[in-house]
């Protein structure tokens, strides 16, 4: 385990920690591409983590836990969709509320599940990891090379124009937000089934916010999200490896600062850092 293995070890850790971050980020990017920001990632993730753990514990089937977690994440996201799309409430407030609601509800329902070992777990580097990379590529293709992608992006950029062309803005947004929830729920499942197979209240410990930051600094690009998630995973791990030589107080900020700097510095490409034009704005038919 000496220097020769540094690179390999770091890559493995980057992939392991990067997987849940990537899943969450891809979901958030999709939702934001449709013009709906969802600050409820943390809440959806933790509900997914609890659901996955409980189902896997009861059935002995971690895969069943994963599926249920995705469904729970999607359902939680529909709550945000209903409030922010149908009721046209402030997206930021609704998302924050979802985070608080998710953390609180999971804490309440999770009572008694802490301190229980899980016998049937998922491996850390697994089909989920590759699926995350696959989804990233697929989303990139869909966003930039299919009609669906044009519809999604136009709803996020100019919903009035899309509406005029006959696109059902609300439906597209609902689907995008629900997809975001499914991905966040699955990310939570990865945490409680593979990354650290156990339930503890508050176990996401802020990962939902990292996801939102990477979604923004990846400039809403699925492939850049892969780079961001892996970079964050690698730097987070290295921040502990390097403690033997560098002051730990400095290293604590490193993964956050470097990931954001790196993503921001390389964002000057063809799409730049521009957010979807209608991001955060509820759409009202006929209004501009």
């Amino acid at each position, binding site marked *: *385990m*000496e220097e020769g*293995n*540094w690179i390999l*070890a770091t890559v493995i*850790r980057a992939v392991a*920690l990067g997987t849940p971050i990537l899943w969450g980020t891809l979901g958030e990017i999709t939702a934001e591409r449709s013009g709906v920001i969802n600050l409820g990632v943390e809440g959806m993730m933790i509900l997914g983590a609890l659901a996955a753990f409980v189902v896997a514990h009861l059935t002995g089937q971690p895969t069943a836990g994963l599926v249920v977690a995705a469904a729970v994440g999607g359902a939680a996201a529909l709550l945000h969709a209903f409030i922010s799309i149908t009721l046209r409430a402030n997206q930021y407030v609704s998302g924050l509320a979802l985070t608080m609601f998710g953390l609180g509800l999971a*804490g309440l329902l*999770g*009572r008694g*599940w*802490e*301190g229980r*070992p899980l016998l049937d777990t998922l491996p850390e580097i697994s089909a989920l990891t590759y699926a995350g990379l696959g989804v990233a590529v697929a989303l990139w293709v869909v966003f930039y090379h299919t009609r669906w992608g044009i519809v999604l992006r136009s709803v996020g950029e100019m919903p009035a124009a899309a509406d005029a062309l006959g696109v059902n803005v609300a439906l597209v947004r609902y689907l995008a937000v629900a997809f975001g929830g499914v991905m966040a729920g699955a990310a939570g499942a990865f*945490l409680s089934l593979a*990354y*650290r*197979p*156990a339930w*503890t*209240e*508050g*176990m996401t*410990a802020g*990962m939902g916010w990292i996801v939102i930051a990477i979604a923004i600094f990846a400039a809403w690009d699925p492939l850049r999200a892969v780079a961001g998630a892996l970079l964050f995973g690698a730097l*987070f*791990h290295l*921040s*502990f*490896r390097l*403690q*033997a030589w560098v*002051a*730990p*107080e400095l290293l*604590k900020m490193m993964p956050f600062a470097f990931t954001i700097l790196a993503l921001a510095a390389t964002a000057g490409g063809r799409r730049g850092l521009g957010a979807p034009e209608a991001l955060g704005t509820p759409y009202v038919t006929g209004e501009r």
Partner: protein
Amino acid sequence: MRRIYLVLALVLVAGLAAPGAAQQKLKAGFIYVGPIGDYGWTHAHDEGRRLAQQRLPWLETIYVESVPEGQVEPFIERMIQQGARVVFTTSFGFMDGTLAAARRYPNHIFAHASGFKRNRNMATYMADFYQVYYLNGLMAGALTKTGRTAYVGAFPIPEVKRHLNAFALGVRAVNPQATVHVRWIFEWFNPAAAKEATEALIAAGADVFAFTEDSPTVVQVAARRNLPSFGHYSPMQKFAPRHVVSGQLVHWDRIYIDFLSKVYAGRYTADNLADVDYWWLLAEKAVELGGEPGVPVNPVFRTALQAARVNTPDLGRISVYDLVMRRLAQMATPQMTFDPFTGPIRDRKGTLRAPAGKRLTVAELTSMEWAAPGVVGPWPKEP
């Protein structure tokens, strides 16, 4: 004859009614810094509260969880309005808020965990692990094959440093060449950080693990690599039955029951707490050695620990298993015939911290900033 029945009936009624009238309930409030589902610090305090309530029929308890440090006063006030006569605040950061409330409510009783400020109506209490960490260190020193043990630390504060140093003293008592590699995560609870810190320590060649963090993450990560570890705070042996050697367990109920009983009996009042400081260790049974209650050493490791032999100044040549049991027995007696922080102790820079034969005082233990010999890694605020 009839009159006798009447008298009997009266006595019976009086007998039934009397305890009801005399039985004044005592209401105690508990203020927690974390969620009770954390399976760590707050979980353990809440277990203590529940056991006290079960054991003491006259006790009624209320609690509030996840109270931010620095905002404790309004919560104390609400508890007093709800009728609490005793309020426990269970985080170091609640110290000044509790003191302010104690001054504002001179007739109520307060007790603050892990702090050092007291008042005539405010006591302090702590169940400390340093002796248990020393015993864990003895075992770790015997079990390491690479000579590198590991410790994932929460914050570099005196409490954690004291535990880390006790662990390191134990490791070196058995294995004078061994080292304790440290990584800090700067959080009490963060599974991802605990996980990556453990991975970093594994990559650095460490092969036995102890830690301070409120989740079984370190235990789980070590077990995946087939490496032994020591549980922290809650029973964690079940998370890795073949890899958890031992660990530290807490019994806050011992302190809560003792304190509340004395309040109920009138021995503790809102006037005589200025010198009441529970600093409870193995002897008071406020802490326990083990990864599971009643199991000081996982039987899986018994043979290995019995096979490892070591020379000691006072007990001669002895197996590490027996050494652990002897030291445990010595510290579990009220006389405490052994304490890990007994001089001569020099820190890792060579400065004398305890002269030969002298034991560190509680004040010295609770303000410890130096690093014990064998500790390798960053040590913020090292003197």
